[in-house]
């Protein structure tokens, strides 16, 4: 079906993903062709940097989600306290 061998096709898809800054997709494609290109120093640098960057971005998302969740919890807590104080004041 194709004139390009499977590993080379995966490498091309990986490069396209890199150009589109989709590092997670590029990492998956580079993993798929790693066996065929692993001996190339240039490929290894690119593949390792991509893997690390994809991981770093996942970590960043986790930190941002956690931070957001904490901020929401704190904010919710304050609102509750204010509301209760208001109720108390109204009660008073």
């Amino acid at each position: 079906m194709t004139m390009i061998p499977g590993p080379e096709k995966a490498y091309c898809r990986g490069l396209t993903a890199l150009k589109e800054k989709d590092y997670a997709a590029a990492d998956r494609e580079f993993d798929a062709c790693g066996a065929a290109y692993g001996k190339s120093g240039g490929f290894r640098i690119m593949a390792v940097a991509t893997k690390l960057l994809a991981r770093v971005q996942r970590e960043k998302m986790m930190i941002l989600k956690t931070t957001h969740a904490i901020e929401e919890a704190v904010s919710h807590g304050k609102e509750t306290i204010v509301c209760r104080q208001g109720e108390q004041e109204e009660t008073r």
Partner: protein
Amino acid sequence: MTDLKTIERLETRLTHLIESQLTRKKDQIDYLLGLNRIDDLLVEHGRGHGVTEGVASFLAEYRPRLQSETMTAAQRRRLGDFLSELLQRLRDSNDGDSAKLADEVREWISSLGEGGFRLILKKPQEPAPLAERFQACLRWEMEEMTALAAVHDHLLSCLDDVLKSAEVKVDPTYRHLAASMIYFLQMEGYKVDPYLKRLRRIQTETEAS
């Protein structure tokens, strides 16, 4: 927050490293992605989809980038192979737009030099002896098999891939490789009838066209 800043610094540096690699290897990457784009067009055509717009867009984007002087002789030959295959499909389409695009592809092949031009216009004057051509065929099949084994776990999956290639290519080497794999699987006791039928159908269709 300190963790986030550290992560962001690392992200910036890694992004910069990757961008600089992409810039440094721009010619090589453009070349590979150009071949890949032609390959995608050939696959689309093989599935019966129209590719005229895709070919026009490909030519506009890649012809200025893939100039003869930025490529090695081997790269020119390989690009010539891909373009020749594309030219063949455009010729088969028989419509005005395809004919114009075919002219442009033919010009491009000519500009690649003797290697690319020879691929579509003439056969070698003195072909190598039969035994040497057979050895070259086996060497090519060995390389193809190594690449296939890297992505498939089982020989049957490799065979399926080769048969798919044989369906869209005029090159008889894929059919030879498929036949060889089928014969080997049969010797190993596998049921190969469906694959044999596929290969016979491909052979018949190729001969008819």
